[in-house]
């Protein structure tokens, strides 16, 4: 079946990382989200993918490389100035023919199991338009569906207000739709929600329930959840033969890649991942659910816990990074602390695009954008966002030399 994969969205809530990359290029569990998606599509038997790109598409094309674009399996369409899902889809219309059904995939969706298999199977049951649905704790962000006893969707309530007290299965971002759908999109000026309503009105939209894990990679803390979902499936340790380990304690399942090095006195508590070429100094404590990308440097005596460090970043000595996501090429100075809990132990709210969003998590640290520079000795409040390329000075308690006489 032909597939339409939407990667062009701006991912505005994935701040600060969305400034420098599309959501599909968020690293999770040692790969990028797009790698997982393409791999799942491939193993579901999908041979031909039409990928709509847009926001920061150069990051995606650099990663996939020319090979991916020329072998005919992936056809790339630029969505240009299209600002909605529907208008981005319409750009790809010519790639499909009347009578086709196609698999529509939002590239922000992540599951450790193959969600596309279910979509294809569910479609095969009736050969009717099909939407995958799932349960989430945050139904107010998605289209809530009403189902009848035959798994037909009878109604979709988009983003119901919390006080409406609605909470059912939501649209999971994976569909099998007919070519006619482009017609509905045209009619509704590229409004995906209205176009789906047209399907409900004019034909049948079947649902299939996805019960396995499901994440919409929307907010920066979703990176941590995705890492956990991947790593909780690990049941063995995998250390590349080139890795240098010196008196290191390793507990639980860990993956340590090519040419990584860990110095004496360090402790690795799995599940954890250490990317190729990364260096971990002496006496470092790496606690569960930590993912460190390639070519990173973790300074002596640092502690890392439930965090993601993208490629080429440095964490200075005696720092603590917990429940946080650190972008690529970030330099964190020595003795920097991410504080990961509010003093009242309430859930942490994060300022995202001018809105305070409740993360629902009582332990949450900081999100540091690609290329940021954080000076030594900074104490970072829970839920802080540091933009990419931002420069934060050292935080000296003794900023100047006290002179020859010394302080009084």
């Amino acid at each position, binding site marked *: 079946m032909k597939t339409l994969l939407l990667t062009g969205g701006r991912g505005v809530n994935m701040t600060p990382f969305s400034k420098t990359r599309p959501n599909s290029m968020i690293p999770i569990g040692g790969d990028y989200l797009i790698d997982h998606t393409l791999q799942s599509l491939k193993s579901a*038997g999908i041979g031909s993918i039409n990928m709509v790109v847009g926001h920061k598409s150069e990051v995606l094309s650099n990663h996939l490389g020319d090979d991916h674009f020329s072998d005919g399996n992936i056809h790339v369409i630029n969505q240009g100035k299209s600002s909605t899902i529907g208008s981005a889809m319409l750009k790809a219309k010519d790639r499909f023919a009347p009578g086709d059904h196609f698999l529509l995939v939002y590239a922000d969706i992540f599951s450790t199991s193959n969600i596309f*298999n279910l979509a*294809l*199977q*569910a479609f*095969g*049951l009736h*050969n009717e338009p099909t939407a995958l649905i799932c*349960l*989430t*704790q945050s*139904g107010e962000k998605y289209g*809530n*569906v*009403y*189902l*009848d*006893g*035959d*798994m037909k969707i009878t*109604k979709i309530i988009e983003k119901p207000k919390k006080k409406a*007290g*609605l*909470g*059912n*299965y*939501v649209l999971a971002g994976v569909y099998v739709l007919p070519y006619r759908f482009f017609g509905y999109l045209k009619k509704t000026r590229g409004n995906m929600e209205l176009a789906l309503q047209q399907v409900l009105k004019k034909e049948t939209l*079947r*649902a*299939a*329930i996805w*019960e396995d894990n499901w994440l919409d990679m929307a907010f920066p803390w979703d990176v941590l959840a995705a890492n956990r979902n991947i790593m909780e499936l690990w049941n063995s340790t995998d250390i590349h033969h080139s890795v240098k380990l010196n008196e290191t304690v390793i507990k639980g399942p860990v993956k340590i890649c090519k040419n990584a090095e860990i110095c004496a006195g360090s402790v690795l508590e799995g599940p954890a991942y250490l990317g190729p070429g990364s260096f971990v100094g002496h006496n470092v404590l790496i606690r569960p659910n930590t993912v460190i990308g390639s070519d990173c440097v973790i300074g002596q005596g640092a502690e890392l816990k439930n965090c993601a460090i993208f490629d080429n970043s440095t964490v200075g000595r005696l720092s603590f990074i917990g429940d946080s996501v650190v972008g690529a090429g970030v330099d964190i100075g020595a003795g920097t602390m991410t504080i990961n809990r509010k003093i009242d132990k309430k859930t942490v709210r994060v300022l995202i695009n001018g809105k305070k969003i409740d993360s629902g998590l009582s332990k949450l640290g900081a999100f540091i954008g690609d290329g940021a520079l954080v000076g030594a000795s900074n104490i970072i409040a829970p839920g802080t966002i540091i933009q990419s390329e931002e420069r934060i000075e050292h935080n000296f308690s003794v900023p100047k030399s006290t002179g020859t006489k010394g302080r009084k």
Partner: protein
Amino acid sequence: MCGIAGIVAHEDITAKLVDSIRNLEYRGYDSCGVALMNGSGVISVSKNVGAVDEVSEKENFLKMSGNIGIAHTRWATHGNVTKANSHPHSSGNKAFTITHNGIVSNHDNLRTELGKKGYKFKSGTDTEVIVHLIDDQFKKLGSVESAFVNAMRKLEGTYAIAMITAHDKGKIYCSRMESPLLLGVGSDANYVGSDFNAFINYTKSAVFLEDGEYAIVTHENHVVKKIATGKTVERDVQELQWDLEMAQKGGFPHYMLKEIYEQPQIVHRALDIDGAEIREMAKAAINQKNFFITGVGTTFYVAQIGQYYFSNYAGITPMVISSDEFRFLAQVDSKSLVLAISQSGETYDTLSALRHAKARKAKTAAIINVMGSSMARMVDHLVLQGSGPEICVISTKAALAQMIVLARIALEAGVMRKHITAKEAKTKEKELRKLPNAIDKLLNEQSAFIHAIAKKQSNIRHWLFLGRGRYYPVARESALKMKEVSYVHAEGMPSGFLKHGTIALIDDDLNSVVFTPTEDEKDLFKLTLSSAEEIRARNGYVLGIRFKTKLKQKLPFSDEIVLPKTPSFIAPFLQVVVAHLLSYFTATTLKRNIDRPRALAKSVTVE
């Protein structure tokens, strides 16, 4: 719902065909049959009452032979479960044989017309009308295809039909109108099926028929045409990506959830059961000096819920005895009525309770789901609940339908005994009519909240399920659901019991669920809340399943599932559905074997 299968090949297909209907058994399994045609065009038909393996053994299906055949597994909705009524049906001269799924609404008129022409009917089915109609058309037109199409044009209602005929060997004719049918395309054989479970073991290539189309299938090819115009329709062959079990669940991850979602429709059906049947049962109940209701497991709790409805609305308290204990406790005599509740109609303990009653000359009655079962055949009064096949071992929809039937009988009995007025009964019936919608709303608006609570509390290994009045048996039934599907310990009891001992258990490791009555049931409401407060006072966790109130103060619950304001007559039933979801989501979080929990069987037919 019934299942149709057909195979056309150039070698013997008997075993494959029997396998096909076995895979369609989930669509219904009260009777079945096969028709096979050999190379010289002789059709042999074999059929009987029972599930596929049972009938296959009884009728020696596998000793038959043929390279073309059609088969059927039936779930009766109209017409009794008898050998004569089971499919396939043949024309008088045996030249045409068909299987049919659906309801032909003009069959009475057609039967009269055909009767005038001398056709004799062996069964009460609409299917036999179709086969005679085809035969009649063939006599007139001389062509099988024209006869088939003309007959289809005369049918009103819904159908999926497969036909073989001695007049046109080597082919299966089939058609569809609002009942499912599709073709399977194999390398050396072709297939017909109600769904692709019929042939998925042989091919994954399928052609979907649409309403108002017919197809002619040989072992090498197939052609699809419109019934109305006779024009050929081009249809692509689709590759199916579906395994057997998933297909039968129709997109739901488990039968349990599928059956939970069928409940609005099942309640409708229970409400559509003929009033005369309900009245007859009510009369039987009040005319005897002693009235017993018996069931075991879930059906025992169903009986208990019935007991409260009889008490509250008919002013009588039936004796409710678990059927495994029946013979040790029940003093039945010729002045007793024993009403048994069973989904399968084969439950061993309940059958022995009925036998015990019959031996003491008591009148017997039953509310059951499977037509033609042992209980159906032995009792004096029978109500068939019409809930369709229930596959999940955990009973959800069937149990709910039984509660509704009991509530209806209680209302009738109340009117007969002048305990309530006919007007009051009408109001309650109207409230019952609101239940399907209320369940639909509950499923579609609360599932995520119930899921969130189940997930959050899934580490808890001990639960108390508490209720008062009619909500007490609801609590017990809900606790049983939790136990059987999630393997989590749950104890259902009257909330009044708490302070007489059980409250000593309250701690961090034990959660409570309080089935809270509607605000209108003032006493019950107040008393139930005070139980919740007792637990909260000891720092216990309480999940309240309650209805919207006008009260300003916060109710004493740690978490709550708030249902819309609901008439008290149907409120307990709605809470039953909440409990279904709560136990389902707890079990999915704990990754239990939902449809086949360990150590349990669907129909317990042993002592």
